[in-house]
């Protein structure tokens, strides 16, 4: 059985010379829910963008056993559902329906199947009935849910989320946490929300300065206050 995600010795530098990733290794097994934490600038977003091939440099990334390369990029993108931090970047179509249908349409699904996927995805995030709404009329919490639906509609192997609770009021945040708890997909979530981490994720990876400095039990991590402080984190 292949790991859902496997990253081997990943290095990445930006064009301006800044070294964002310095030899990252990790793997995620099917069904796991893993948190990624670290201070700003540690390389979290950069790492996530490697998982579906938007960025690539040195090292190897495997998704469901297949290496992420030009030839496999289409399947990779269908398997890795990446949800960005700012939902407005992700909701670029005129209506909610169009945005959720975007992925399935590009995957080549016939029209009836597209509609089915959209219904299922919106239902899963509890946004059924919002199909004809324009994205700029939605609240922040609703946008985040629809953004997740846009990716769920592609039926991915793993959901990768970048800061899902950022910018949400307490009620919307609670709703989103419950949603993430209920979704069955394998998950890899980058976040600053340490309370959500302790609530939802058994395993946490800590990245700092482009390197993985911890990969293990969340409970163990959160009890080591010195370590947390060293890497710009706080206990819940």
């Amino acid at each position, binding site marked *: 059985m292949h790991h859902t995600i496997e990253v081997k010795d990943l290095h990445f530098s930006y064009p301006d010379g800044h070294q964002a990733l310095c030899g990252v290794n990790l793997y995620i097994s099917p069904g796991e829910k893993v948190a990624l934490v670290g201070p700003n600038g540690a390389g979290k977003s950069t790492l996530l963008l490697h998982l579906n*091939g*938007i960025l*690539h440099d040195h090292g190897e990334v495997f998704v469901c056993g297949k290496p992420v390369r*030009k030839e496999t*990029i289409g399947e990779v993108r269908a398997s890795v559902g990446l949800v960005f931090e700012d939902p407005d970047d992700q909701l*670029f179509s005129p209506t909610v329906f169009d945005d959720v249908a975007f992925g399935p349409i590009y995957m080549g699904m016939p029209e009836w199947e597209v509609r089915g996927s959209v219904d299922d995805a919106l239902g899963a995030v509890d946004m059924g009935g919002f199909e004809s709404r324009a994205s700029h009329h939605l609240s922040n919490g609703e946008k985040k849910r629809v953004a997740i639906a846009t990716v769920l509609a592609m039926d991915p192997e793993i959901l990768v989320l970048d800061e899902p609770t950022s910018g949400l009021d307490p009620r919307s945040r609670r709703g989103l946490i419950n949603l993430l708890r209920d979704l069955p997909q394998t998950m890899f979530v980058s976040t600053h929300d340490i309370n959500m981490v302790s609530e939802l994720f058994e395993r946490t990876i800590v990245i700092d300065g482009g390197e993985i400095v911890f990969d293990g039990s969340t409970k163990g991590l959160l009890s080591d206050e010195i370590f947390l402080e060293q890497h710009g984190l706080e206990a819940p």
Partner: protein
Amino acid sequence: MMWLAPHALHVPDGFLSTAVSVVGWVLALIAIGIAVRLTRYQLGERQIPLMGLLAAFIFAAQAINFPVAAGTSGHLLGGALAAIVMGPWAATLIMTAVIVTQGLLFQDGGLLVMGWNILNMGVFTAFTGYAVYVLVRRLVGEGRRSRLAAAFVGAWLSVEVGAIATAFELAASGTSPLYLGLPAMASVHALIGLGEAIITAGAIALLQASRPQVLEAGETAPGRKGASFMMIGLMVALVVAIFSPLASQNPDGLEFVAEREGFLDRSLEPLFELLPDYSIPFVPNEVATTILAVVIGTLIVFGIAWAIGRTTVRKETIGE
């Protein structure tokens, strides 16, 4: 609710004659077609999200104004800025998107006359701005100050050219005699153009300071040589138009000619024979000749510009 700045160059329906409007649409569609194709080569898959967002930027930037005098304010049209940063063909596409939306959604600018609105505020401003920018830099040098000066002059001239073109279109339609319209448009927009120039230069200054790579990209966009040809073409058209009866000092110039010639008759261009048994009211044949000359000249210029654009452009390959 959002309030956005006023514009002086959006011509509403009714102010240009049918014939003039149709010509405008034909030329505009050609320009748009070329712009779409060349920017596809230039930008690849990034074309639509990039052009779309930059169009939103121009639309919103037109709201950023600054006080000039006694309650009036200077603001941006944006054609020159878009062209300096992205190249004139991308600017054409961007400005077209803005102008179509302003006309269609907000009724700022008519639908039948939209062809000329697109040409005046999109194509002419973009190409004038770009061509002058390139020219000034070639004359003065490649330094940072020369960039600002080049952007300043390019933006100012772009507004002037747009305004002058509008004056000619109004004259050719019989709405406003040239001896009145041209000085009025040219002088008012000489002032408005200053606002454009200052803001454009200010924007270029900021880009130069924080992200100079962006400016370098614009300087290698397709349209560099095409822009020079377009400018020459516009000058030729201008010269032709000046020597036509449109610019007659006789106060009754255009109308006098209209009275004398009456409706179109058999002595007229075959162009209008395409519409048998149906005369287009109030188009004197001298005006028709001028329009025809401008159209043919512009078509030749577009053709050359497009041909040059195709041979010098590099196809962008996307990493993944």
